[in-house]
């Protein structure tokens, strides 16, 4: 039996990697993938805690997160495609029209 701490540790590592990737990478698509990694890291943490506590609530939340992530992926990708069509680039350094 693997202790829950190991799952949580893996989850923390995955999350940190996601954050790191988000900050290091400069194109929108990769940053988007980093966000997905973070989401799944949190899913893992939920599942670990659900198993440890023996309650179903954590698993329910994971289902919700997956649903939301799916929807987000659809919209996010659509936005990225549209941005690319308009600007011929998805480099976040160049997309700063919302500067105040």
């Amino acid at each position, binding site marked *: 039996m693997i202790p829950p701490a190991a799952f949580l540790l893996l989850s923390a590592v995955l999350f940190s990697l996601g*954050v790191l990737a*988000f*900050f290091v990478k400069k194109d929108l698509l990769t*940053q988007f993938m980093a966000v997905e990694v973070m989401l799944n890291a949190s899913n893992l943490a939920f599942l670990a805690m659900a198993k440890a506590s023996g309650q179903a609530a954590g698993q329910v939340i994971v289902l919700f997160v997956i649903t939301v992530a799916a929807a987000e992926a659809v919209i996010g990708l659509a936005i990225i495609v549209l941005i690319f069509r308009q600007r011929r680039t998805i480099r*976040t*350094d160049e*997309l*700063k*029209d*919302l*500067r*105040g």
Partner: protein
Amino acid sequence: MVRYFWLIPLLPGASALLLLLLGPRLSRRWISWQACLTVFLSFALSLAGFVHLVRAGHGSSGLAKTLLPWIASGSFSAAISFAFDELAAVMALVVTGVGLLIHVYSVGYMAADRAYSRYFAYLNLFTFFMLVLVLASDIVLMFVGWEGVGLCSYLLIGFWFERPAASKAGMKAFIVNRIGDAAFIVGVLFLLVNVGSSSFAAINAAPAAGVLGPGLVTLVAILLFVGATGKSAQIPLYVWLPDAMEGPTPVSALIHAATMVTAGVYMVCRLSGLFAASQAASSVVAWVGGLTAVFAATIALVQHDIKRVLAYSTISQIGYMFLGCGVGAYAAGMFHLVTHAFFKSLLFLAAGSVIHALGGEQDMRRMGGLKKALPTTFPVFLVGALAIAGVPFLSGFFSKDAILTSAFAGGHYVLYALGLSGAVLTALYMFRLIYMTFYGQTRATHPAGTAPHVHESPPVMTVPLVVLAVFSALAGFAGLPVLLGEKANWIGGFLEAVLEPAAHHLALSTEVGLILAATAAALAGIAMAFVFYRKRPDLPERTARSFPGIYRLLVGKYYVDEAYDAVVVRPLVRGAETVYARFDLGVIDGALDGSAAAAASAGKGLNVLQSGLVRDYALAFLLGAILFLGVLLL
């Protein structure tokens, strides 16, 4: 029918509301009928109530009706309640009767005006407020009517607001009235605090019951009278009335001659118990009235505008009414109010007919010779002039004589002399007006004023004139001198139920002497006018040249307007300008501009945070999350 007397004010009020809301959509025919019919119904109800009171005789307490509770606050309460007693009956008949005739006349006079519905809406609204003032059974509700008629007066003086003079005159009337009303409000508050009730019955009974001390009675009465000097155009607040002639002529007849300006006299009569209890306040009323009567008459002597002559004449005649009230003859004051309402509205409407005929000309120096051209207007004008001058057996003769006799009987000989000399002046300026307008050769310069264009007014205007002329001639028989028997003074007896009685009796010979003196005064004035303006037309100018100082003083209207301008208006305006420059622009605008500038610079400073780069925002997000976790863990 009598039970529904409370509808008297509400009918014109409802009509006014309808005209204000739907006015421009209604046809002129409909507007005319609606406006006149509602006033006619009020008149019919007033007449029914009046007949009821006459039949009931003395001892009837009149009709009363409480419509709604209104204010209830602590120990103070006021209700919307109307009362119809003898005094209210007489006044309501005047307001609705003369008002009806003037509504009808207006149908002809205003026929060509663009704002027809607005005119009748205001006129009906005025009738409503005036009747509220008359029928109110407590002083707070009366004050509502009091302010309401002031508002309508303002609206109707400035009816042709595209003319700067008219809108200025409206504002002047409103502001001058405000000054009087301020004193009136203070007086009312004194009453509410000390009497504890706002009903007229309680207030009139208060001095005798010892609820109000003698000093307080005098103070309150004088404060209320200051309000009356504003509304009724007496010294020192009369200055607005001559300017009010900028309004349409029927308005001048209704509001600024027959009804609203006499509201002050009505109020003094309504509170006769209060005024009679203070010798000092009564003296103030009498002296202000007497002085105003002569003062305004002297100004009327040299005016050239036909309506302004009548305006100063109105001020002078209201002075007589106050003179009567001040010497304790409240019934005589009311009687003069009634007869004055007839002959002065007649004179104004007839003057309106003259102005109408001459295409808007108001300057008497460009009139003359209209006797033949205006076959209806001239005789009715003459009746009005004879009545106001006090020629025997016309209404003004009896009412003026009643006042002068009371002044003499009360031992106020100086006031009597003032009144008598005022009577001479009245006859003089009225017949100066008649001779300048109707006799001699035409002096018209305007093409519309020359012979072929001059036309008599349509029947809708002349019929009210004839009706008013009949009343001006005959109304005096309601109040014959007492020497013809105890019952001769019918109106005096009728009003005795409400008013403080005048308890003076004179020897028969004295009374006859007084009547002869009044007659002589009237005839002397007419004779002087005949000599000056008919027989020797060069005489007025020569007289003016012999007394240049007096003449200039009169033409300048004693420079009262100029004095007020220098003492009150200009310092106020200058003070307001200083406050505007220092406080408004400096402090208020400065604070506003300062806070706006602070917000703008704060925005500029924080602007750097909004880089537009996703990574910067994400960093802020991350730091925030770490901070939050840190706080949570520690």
